[in-house]
């Protein structure tokens, strides 16, 4: 056995056919590393087809994870290790592997037929084209079959356990504890033969590493010095679902979700459906429109009404959101952004729904927008969105994206007692008098501070009232088409939304707020890459300021003042410059866009190169 080397970080990418169990393999490797104490960040990357033609490049499913002994935020630009279970995976992902990186291939799957399906006319393992990498060829399929044979597992069934062989091998190479995985296999697979085969394959992979000279040196990534506390590992969608449960508890309101299945938002529906003992009601609606209508009906009834969607679903919810703007009821609309337009890239990430969130309704229909920025932060973003919706009686759009939804990170659990109190009071007695001096309920009499209207729910005696999409009179809420009233109501709706900014905490400027010339303005999941890029630039001696927005509408009152302090403002976005355009229009500053629209997050390398380019272009230009 060789000595163990120490790495400060490691990026592993597991790649195989959609049916090869790569997501599960990556997830296990991540869980074990999280429990071991590494900081980490993951990036599942898979096709929209459930099972694309086996063995083709279209069917490749990958899972990338970065582990470190220090605080990290991204899943890493280029893997140090690529595990390729078939030629298609090699073809799809080789370009990502760092020069000199470790390439582990399942030698058994490089037969002529497999090569042809992946579009190779000869075997790349034999032609010297991989000389720039440390190639480790392992006959994983046959070794897995051998390991399972004594258990009486049929060879064709045994073959399905080869992902556990790969996991075992990589676990040995990077000194991962084995017990948690063995326990997990025993608990997960009820069929003893399947559990036995997976265990045998995992152990065979681990022992293969130990006993063959081929694999060579063993490394470890030591636990990160993370702040003391109790940690769990969550994906963005799970954290968001938990945030909705928490929001219901904090508001002391039942949560009702109306949702129609759509990738990548469906996991929120799945997660919330488990938590009925919290009083969470979930309705799988007949369509996206009904899903939002159900949430609005629940809001009228006095619940925290929520609807979740993605892609084309956002368009379908527009008319309900407009009604919610008009009848001024709380409604949480959660959009897990994906590549568009139309069906677009259902499983890939993009942040191109800011414009539809801002403008995608008929009439003047302003509403607040909240954006989550990391998987764990989705929890707090959900609570913030609920706070605004309930306090101001307004629909709120919460933007997450596919990268956050499926990515995971360690999360230091908050103290429940530190979470905000977002309770609001229902109106239970008349709040005005009519011309004859009788006590009446005025459903559009506004709170002087928030401009929110009162919320009286059905079942409250004496406060019966009607709301609707027709323009309403200020105070009484009766149908009113008069010109002065429509002007006034439009102004009031806008002023109410603008006023929300008064409830934000002051903006935080990261990096070098006072010394920098250049300020990066970000929102959403680019947080991870911007964080790593800004740190790298600062280590290289540059001064960089960074503001990351979670409230996109209304923008924070202090944003303009901050941005005007910098000679250059750059806005990296996974779209064609949507926030950048808003900022340019609102503050009349020459903000520079950095855009990417490939269905993938920025890499640190890309962002750094873009910043360097902008900096170079600015040199010699008088300030």
């Amino acid at each position, binding site marked *: 056995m060789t000595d163990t080397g120490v790495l400060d970080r490691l990026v592993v990418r597991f790649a195989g056919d959609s049916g090869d169990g790569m997501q599960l393999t990556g997830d296990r490797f991540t869980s074990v590393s999280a429990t071991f104490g590494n900081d980490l960040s993951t990036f599942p990357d898979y096709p929209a087809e459930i099972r694309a033609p086996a063995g083709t490049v279209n069917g490749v499913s990958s899972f990338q994870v970065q582990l470190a002994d220090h605080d990290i935020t991204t899943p890493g630009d280029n893997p140090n290790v690529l595990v390729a279970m078939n030629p298609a995976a090699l073809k799809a992902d080789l370009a990502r592997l760092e020069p000199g990186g470790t390439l582990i291939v399942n030698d058994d799957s490089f037969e002529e037929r497999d090569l042809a399906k992946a579009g190779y006319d000869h075997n790349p393992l034999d032609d010297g084209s991989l000389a720039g990498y440390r190639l480790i060829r392992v006959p994983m399929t046959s070794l897995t079959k051998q390991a399972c044979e004594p258990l009486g597992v049929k060879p064709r069934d045994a073959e399905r356990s080869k992902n556990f062989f790969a996991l075992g091998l990589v676990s040995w190479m990077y000194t991962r504890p084995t017990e948690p995985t063995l326990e997990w296999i025993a608990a997960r697979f009820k069929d003893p033969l399947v559990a036995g085969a997976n265990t045998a394959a995992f152990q065979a992979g681990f022992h293969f590493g130990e006993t063959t000279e081929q694999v060579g040196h063993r490394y470890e990534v030591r636990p990160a010095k993370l702040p003391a*506390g109790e940690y769990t590992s969550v994906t963005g969608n799970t954290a968001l679902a938990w945030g909705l449960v928490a929001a219901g508890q904090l508001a002391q309101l039942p949560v009702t979700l109306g949702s129609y299945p759509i990738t990548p938002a469906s996991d929120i529906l799945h997660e919330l459906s488990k938590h009925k003992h*919290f009083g969470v009601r979930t309705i799988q609606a007949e369509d996206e429109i*009904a899903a939002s*209508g159900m949430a*609005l009906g629940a809001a009228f009834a006095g619940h925290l009404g929520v609807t979740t969607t993605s892609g084309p679903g956002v368009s379908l919810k527009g008319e309900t959101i407009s009604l919610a703007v008009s009848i001024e009821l709380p409604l949480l609309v959660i959009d897990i952004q994906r590549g568009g337009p139309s069906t677009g890239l259902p499983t890939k990430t993009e942040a191109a729904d800011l414009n539809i969130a801002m403008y995608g309704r008929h009439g003047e229909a302003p509403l607040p927008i909240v954006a989550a920025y990391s998987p764990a932060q989705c929890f707090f973003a959900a609570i913030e969105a609920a706070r605004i919706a309930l306090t101001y009686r307004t629909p709120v759009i919460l933007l997450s994206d596919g990268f956050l939804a499926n990515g995971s990170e360690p999360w230091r659990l908050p103290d429940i007692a530190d979470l905000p109190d977002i309770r609001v009071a229902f109106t239970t007695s008349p709040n005005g008098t009519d011309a004859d001096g009788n006590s009446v309920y005025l459903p559009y009499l506004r709170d002087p501070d928030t401009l929110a209207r009162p919320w009286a729910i059905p079942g409250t005696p004496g*406060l019966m009232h009607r709301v*609707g999409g027709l323009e309403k009179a200020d105070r009484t809420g009766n149908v009113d088409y008069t010109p002065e009233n429509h002007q006034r109501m439009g102004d009031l709706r806008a002023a109410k939304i603008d006023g929300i900014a008064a409830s934000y905490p002051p903006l935080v400027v990261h990096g070098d707020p006072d010394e920098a010339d250049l300020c990066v303005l970000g929102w959403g999941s680019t947080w991870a890459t911007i964080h790593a890029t800004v740190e790298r630039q600062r280590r290289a001696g540059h001064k960089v300021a960074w503001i990351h927005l979670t409230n996109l509408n209304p923008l924070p009152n202090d944003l303009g003042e901050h941005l005007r302090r910098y000679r250059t403002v750059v806005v990296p976005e996974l779209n064609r410059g949507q926030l950048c355009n808003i900022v340019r229009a609102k503050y009349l500053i020459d903000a520079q866009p950095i855009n990417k629209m490939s269905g993938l997050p920025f890499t640190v390398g890309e962002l750094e190169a873009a910043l360097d380019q902008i900096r170079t272009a600015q040199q010699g230009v008088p300030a």
Partner: protein
Amino acid sequence: MTDTAIQLTSKKDWSSDQEVRWCPGCGDYGILQAVQQLMPDLGVSPENTVFISGIGCSSRFPYYMNTYGMHSIHGRAPAIATGLAVARPDLDVWVITGDGDGLSIGGNHLIHALRRNVNLTILLFNNRIYGLTKGQFSPTSEVGKVTKSTPFGSIDPPFNPLAVALGAEASFVARTHDLDRKHMMEIFRAAHDHRGAAFVEIYQNCNVFNDGQFNDITKRTVRDEMMIDLVHGQPIVFGADRQRGVAMGSNGFLQLVEVADVGIDNILVHDQHHPHPSLAFALARLNTDDHSPTPFGIFRQVERQEYAGAVGAQLAAAAEKKGPGDLAALLRSNGTWTVG
């Protein structure tokens, strides 16, 4: 809802202070009168009653009821009402819709509310025309109808609303018309008392854009010969002397017969509670146009699991099994580890 808290109400208690703005002579007035007159007799209170409507002439209805109400979005009332009913099973929720609102733009929501059997009382005002947009053909207009959008006659085959509702597994299906307040009140009461989704088609006259559409059936002078009253447990007969009836032919189809020809024992006995919807469906398709004898009354009323009740039962079962939700425990449900 606590019955003891309910005060006796009068029709006035159920009428809002808003001026009713349908065209003079519109059939909607009669329906509003019937509902407002019925409500005090239902043993319910205005604060526990909600009217949800979509868009169209009929959908102005909630503004005139002194209850909670929402004039919502074209076609979406059944979806909004579903969310409301699931959140608050203690409320009486009514849905007011029309042939365009309920069967065209909102067809999907209507059939799914019926399929789920949400506890809603759904009144569909069928005037076979678009009124609020000033006279285009609707999904219940007959083929050949000349309207502003069909100057050469409509080529769209119409829906039969009752057949749609039965096809969507509705547990309560009935038909009434705007000229008979007593009949409307009787049907609305039965629909309200039904636990689950109750669907009522109301033949309603639009005197501006489709005047007299149902005259050949519902006018007082022709009613006896043209309206077939469905009475549970009774032979289905009609006519001034109850001389005509409905019988099943040897080919399995329903047919109109002279009672004297076949004998009263061979007249179909109406069974609105029959678990199989096929006879209700056949009765719904008995009249082929608005000029032939047409059945009115309750076509089908069966017991079926109500949706909001089932949602509530799952919640109660989960709370029973797991205890009340514990947020701190939820955040630890994926397993945790401790640093430092």
